[in-house]
């Protein structure tokens, strides 16, 4: 078993964990964490295939894409966090509920 195969299988598992977390977890912050874990799975699959295609050095294009991707994911997570905190300030709700 090669190194990249271990991590590419891990990436699939992480992505599914993230999707499940988005559905199952109730709190806003946990939902945001779940999306970040999902993104982590995607990035891990990119980097593991960059390792597979390595010649003198690992394929740099997926590395660059993943670096930009991480920064964009963090920017969007910060926006989601701002939204969540605003919702909490205005309505005192921590999750999407149909109760009221």
């Amino acid at each position, binding site marked *: 078993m090669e190194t990249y195969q271990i991590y*590419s*299988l891990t990436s699939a598992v992480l992505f599914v964990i993230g999707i499940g977390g988005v559905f199952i977890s109730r709190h806003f912050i946990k939902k945001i964490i779940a999306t970040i874990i999902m993104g*982590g799975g995607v990035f891990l699959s990119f980097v593991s295939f*960059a390792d597979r295609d390595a010649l003198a050095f690992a394929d740099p*294009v997926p590395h660059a894409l*993943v670096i930009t991707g991480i920064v964009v994911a963090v*920017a969007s997570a910060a926006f989601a966090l701002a939204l969540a905190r*605003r919702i909490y300030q205005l309505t005192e709700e921590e999750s999407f509920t149909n109760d009221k």
Partner: protein
Amino acid sequence: MSVLIDILLAILVIYLALQSLLAPRLSQSVFLFFAFGLALALAWVRLGAVDVAITEAAIASGFLGVLFLDALRDFSPRSSEEQKNISTVQNSRSRNSVKSLLLPRLSLVLGLGLFLLIALEAVWNIPDGGGLAADAEKLLPQSGVEHPVTAVLINFRAYDTWLEIGVILLGLLAVFAVGKIQIYRKPIPVVDDILLRQVILFFTPVLFLFGAFLLYFGKTGPGGAFQAAVLWGAIGILLHLGGRPIFLLIPRWLGQLLLTLGLLFFLILGFLFIAGGATLFEYPPAYAGVLILIVETLAAISIAAALTAMFANLNQMKKEESNKIDSTN
């Protein structure tokens, strides 16, 4: 032996991801998320992607973790008794509706299991495309830098990087829009703790120097604009926590200039290339090294300013709320 380490690391990453979603308390899940980011950074080191590992540890684990920690104080002001009440209410509710919840839960589990199988199969059988490593290797001498990842980021795929700086700026604007921009210029109290102040004063030049080191050595090895930007952004966050919010101390136009500098210079450079007869972001090989260094420095300044402003704005949201509670009391 090395396969064993990889398997252990993979299991650790999966375990931490699961636990950070299943942990009963919010603070636990945030701290496990920190650990998840660091374990993922280790996985990237194992895959030979040191740049990605630095970025992950600094931004996705460090900066985002700081934002989550800051948000935790917002979300947990309730006393434990109230939380107990809520959980008992939820328990009784779920006991009443356990039959109506059974079907959706079952279908969710089945769907996720099916999805997991499809994802594993897809990842296992992904076709061998060969990648772009050979092309990157061939063009590396023309790019002006020696490190392939930096060459791809700033030279070969500069368009992506340029727009990405734009996306960060857009995210900052969205945070501003959500968080009421007028409270942003309210002064915050100076921290009275002398140890914290001295440590922050000590770490400011150290972080600046380390960021500049990463920026300069991005030319030859792992490092570059984004890693440097996070370290410089950490300076801004530390100074903000120490009671010296940078964006209040400098004039407003200077703050706006710092935020947009990277995007603007990148754009002007691209149009200058077009005016000179080349395509957008086609660096002339003779000056590529110098131009890339300037672009990286300005982009790092912009991203650092944007990260600091994001943190400052989110932190001020908390301040406003606690003031409101104080006034009602």
